[in-house]
Structures are given as structure tokens and as C-alpha cells.
């Protein structure tokens, strides 16, 4: 594994390259697009282990942090979706520089999947394929999920939590939108998140896109169906998993569920 800084001096990003260890006949590289905030913290180890496994079976993997997240430069105040879409393009270009001889597949999880879908329209050389895992297709619902998770986290954490939290959550729509589980969200980002909608999330016509989602996730199913009716090559693959996206790592919610690792490896290898 080789860490590196890349991108422009004004927008330095942290990346980690996992070079393929063998099997020169495998000509694939994977760009891992992380989720946001607490979901990124939660999946860091999963992405690390996945990248190692991919490298062992001959697939290059590249992980990175968006500007203002993880170890990349920038503050949380600077975070916004359009910049992050460009960061995916920058990471894609970096991976092309490292392994331009390989087909590049993008794996995105949660908001990372949404950003990947958006960014695919922006890069001059689109990825060969995309695997989008539990994409966010309803931004307003996503913000509500995070608000509720934020209040739940505070209530779980304090010895005697403030009993007014739930009233504020119910009665004040803007409460807890600037502080999403301990990650600051500037007004521009909040607007952008709420604007995410299946109607405004067209898939780029890359060779193939696989969407992994819970079979009961109706909004994602409808979104995929809508894309297919526009003749975009996309398939919906059911994927139920035990990962709780916004939880802290603890023994009763495995950090790297084996079934998740196996499924993602299989989808990326195809």
C-alpha cells in the first residue's frame, strides 16, 4: 500500500494505492469512492480490507478522501457535492496515471455511489463500469435519516441526554442539519443534499452499471427501472447486509462483514 498526496496545490487530496500483486492477465483497476461523514469513518476499514483483497487477486485499487474529509486538505466548511464530483475525476485521472494500462471500475457506497453516478458525466474518459452500493437517490430522506441518527447518537452517548432533542427533531426541520453526526454541513451542502432526487440523477451510459441495494429499497428500485427505460445498461442486484452505516465500530456490528467483502469482490471481478 502506498499513500500519496495528489491533485492541485489548492485542492490536495489524500490517496492510497494498492498495487496488484500478481496475475498480469487481469487488467482491472478499481477506484473506491467513499461515503460521507460518519458513514466514511464506518467503512474505512472495510475499504482497506477490500483493497488489499483486490490487490491479492491482481486488481489495482485506489482509495481516496474528498476535499475537506478524511485526511485530505480542506475543512468541513468547504465540503460540497460539485467539488466532490470533481475530486472523483481527479482520483480517476490519478489512477489512470498509475495504471493507464487497465480498465477502471468505480465502486461507490452510499453518497459515494451518488457522487460517482454524477461524476461519470464529467470525466473525459468515463469508467468502464460502475458498482453503486446503496446509493442515495432521495436526498431529503437521506438528510432526515442523518438528523434522526444524530439525535439517536447524542441520546445514546450522554448519561442523561437533553429531553428536548426529540421535540426539536420533530418540530424544527432545520435543527441538526448543520451538524450531521459530528460533521459540519455548510448551507450550500445542505441544499445540495436535499436536492438529490431520482429524477435528477441520470446514469452515464458506461458499459455496465450494477446497483446493489436492499430488495425492499423501493426508491432505488424505481430509479433503476427509470434508467433502464431510458436504455441505460444497468442492473439491480439485491444485497441485504448487516452493516449499520451510521454506527460506531463495535462488536455487535462487524466492522468488515465477510459476506460484504465477498459480494463486493465478486461484483468487481465480473
Amino acid at each position, binding site marked *: 500500500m502506498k499513500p500519496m498526496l*495528489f491533485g492541485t496545490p489548492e485542492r490536495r487530496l489524500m490517496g492510497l494505492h494498492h498495487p496488484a500483486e500478481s496475475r498480469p492477465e487481469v487488467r482491472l483497476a478499481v477506484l473506491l469512492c467513499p461515503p460521507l461523514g460518519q458513514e466514511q469513518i464506518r467503512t474505512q476499514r472495510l475499504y482497506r480490507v477490500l483493497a488489499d483483497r483486490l490487490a491479492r487477486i491482481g486488481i489495482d485499487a485506489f482509495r481516496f478522501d474528498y476535499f475537506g474529509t478524511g485526511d485530505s486538505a480542506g475543512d468541513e466548511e468547504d465540503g460540497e457535492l460539485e467539488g466532490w464530483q470533481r475530486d472523483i475525476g481527479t482520483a480517476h485521472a490519478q489512477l489512470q496515471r498509475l495504471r493507464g494500462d487497465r480498465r477502471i471500475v468505480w465502486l461507490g457506497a452510499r453518497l459515494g455511489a451518488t457522487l460517482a453516478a454524477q461524476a461519470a458525466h464529467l470525466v473525459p474518459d468515463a469508467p468502464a463500469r460502475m458498482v453503486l452500493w446503496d446509493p442515495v437517490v432521495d436526498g431529503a430522506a437521506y438528510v432526515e435519516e442523518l438528523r434522526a441518527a444524530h439525535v439517536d447518537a447524542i441520546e445514546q452517548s450522554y448519561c*442523561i*441526554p437533553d429531553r428536548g432533542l426529540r421535540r426539536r427533531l420533530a418540530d424544527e426541520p432545520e435543527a441538526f442539519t448543520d451538524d450531521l453526526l459530528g460533521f459540519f454541513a455548510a448551507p450550500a451542502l445542505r441544499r445540495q443534499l436535499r436536492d438529490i432526487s431520482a429524477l435528477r440523477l441520470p446514469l452515464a451510459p458506461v458499459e455496465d452499471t450494477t446497483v446493489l441495494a436492499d430488495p425492499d429499497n423501493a426508491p432505488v428500485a424505481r430509479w433503476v427501472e427509470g434508467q433502464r427505460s431510458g436504455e441505460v445498461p444497468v442492473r439491480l442486484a439485491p444485497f441485504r447486509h448487516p452493516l449499520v452505516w451510521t454506527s460506531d465500530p463495535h462488536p455487535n456490528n462487524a466492522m468488515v462483514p465477510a459476506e460484504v467483502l465477498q459480494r463486493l469482490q465478486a461484483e468487481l471481478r465480473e
Partner: protein
Amino acid sequence: MKEFPVLFGPGDALMGVVTSPADGPSVPVACVLYNMGATYRAGPRRINVKIARQMARLGFTSIRFDLSGLGDSAPPVDPKGFMAQSVLDLQAAMNTVETVLGIRRFIVIGFCSGAVNGLAVAQLDPRVIGLLMFDGFSFPTGRVLKERNLRRLLALPFNPAVREKTMRWLRRKVNAQAPDIFSYEAADAGMERYREAVTRLLERGTAVLALYSGTLQAHDRGRDQLSLLGDAQLLQRIDYRFVADIDHTLTTVASQRIFLQLLGDWAVALAAPGPAAGGDPGASTAQRAANMPPLVRQHRSAPDAADAPAAMSMSGAPLRSG
């Protein structure tokens, strides 16, 4: 501010990020940040990144890194047991900062179970001049625990969140779920070992800040979390702070700001010439100075502030740059 990733330790197995002020460190002290439980080097809510950058604004250098086998660090080739390995890892982090930037005085910041690792390395390594233990060791008397439970009981009828927490606790007891090895209750290092270790540190002139949050209790009548120590003189020598408005994982941006301010003020006072904050008030400045390693010396390989590397391997193995 300059930041660069670094691989260090035996076989370059440890992964970290060094942060230093843009014009070079103006304070000859570096902060050492590492994992809280299983969370990677960024820390819960990315707090370690925020600490490192805040401290850089105050003139301090920091290194945040993953202990062996956590985050992006590889497991050790010759494992020594978790505690012994973590001490070696922390020393490797300090060695790296000393080699690259010539800094030989360190503040170790341990969150939760990290406080145990922090105390262990501070005892062994005189380069540690300050140790912050956040929600670390906890030795409350029966009175403290009863008062906490009574407060919760009184809140139960009026606070749905307290009712739910109580039900979750009961369900865990009934279902006998796996022990939470990364819970905020610190590993049982033993009260006597804690007493001896902290006494040694204070006699050496190392500042000890024991900080507790509103997760462990809602009120603190006076050093409640260490009340079982029963040693009034020792307790007075520890810089003990309770902040009800912050919680164990700094879940809110507001609690993070309180923490950052407190840490910054403490570290600046500690690094300033003269009596160190939290140090032994009985020791003279001369005694504390005599116990401290030499200050920053210029090191030939230290990167100029304007030329921080894109990545660094302490073994000299080539790393790609972007």
C-alpha cells in the same frame, strides 16, 4: 499548514499523517494522536484531524497514526501483545517526528482505551511531557455510582431517551451479548498501578490532564471519576476536568469546539516557558526543566516547510507522488 502521509516503524508497517505549521513548528512540542478503539487514525467524528490542524495553527506539530493492525497499519510481523505493541508503536511515532522534524518533546492524547496506551508509553518515555487522558481510567466510589443511578432514576419518568437507554441496557444483560471491548469503560489496569504510574509521571514533571465527559456522569462533585483513589494529595496534583457539555465521542460540532479550545489552552500553557499547566505544583521550574529532554535541534533531513513531501517512507523505500 503542511501535511504529508508517512509509513514508519519496522517494515514501514505503520501509517500516519504528519501535520506541521506552514512556516515550520514554532513550538518545540508535538502531539501524538492515535486510535480510539477500532476507529481509524482520523478519530471519532474526524476529531484527530481537527486537533492536528488546530494545533498547527497554534504552532504545534502533530502525528496521527494507526496502531498495528488497525486502520491502515499492518499487523506486526513479530507481535508482542496489544499493550506492549502499542507502546512500541507510539514510540515509533515519536521517533519519526524526532527524525523528520527534530522535535523531542511530546504530548500524548489518549481517548478512552487509548488512555491506557498513553499512560503506558508516558511512563517509559521521558520525551512525553504531557498526557491527556479523555474518559480514560475511572475509579468512582459507591457514592458516585449511586448518585449517578439515582439521577437517572429521577429522570426516567420525564425523559424517553433515558427510558430507552435503560431498556437497551436490560436487553443486553438478558441477551448476554458480546462484551464491548472498545467501550468507554477503560481496560482494568488496576487502581494501584494507575496510582503508581501517575505518581511517577508527576514526579518527573509530566503534566497529566484527566478529562471526563457527560457520558460517564451528568454531574461531578469533585474528581468523582477518581474518587476511589482516596489519595487527596495525588488527586490535587492531577489536572482533573469534568465538562458536562461534551460526550465520549464528541458527537456534536459544539462539543468538538469545547474540546479543541480546552486542549489548545492546556497545550499552549504546557509548552510555554515557566511552570507547566497540570504539572506538579510542588516541583520548581528548574526541576521540571532538568527532567525534560533537550529542545528542538535542527536535523539535516527535516523538510523545509515549503517543501513538505507528498509522502514519506522512513525506510527509504520509494513512494509514488501525485
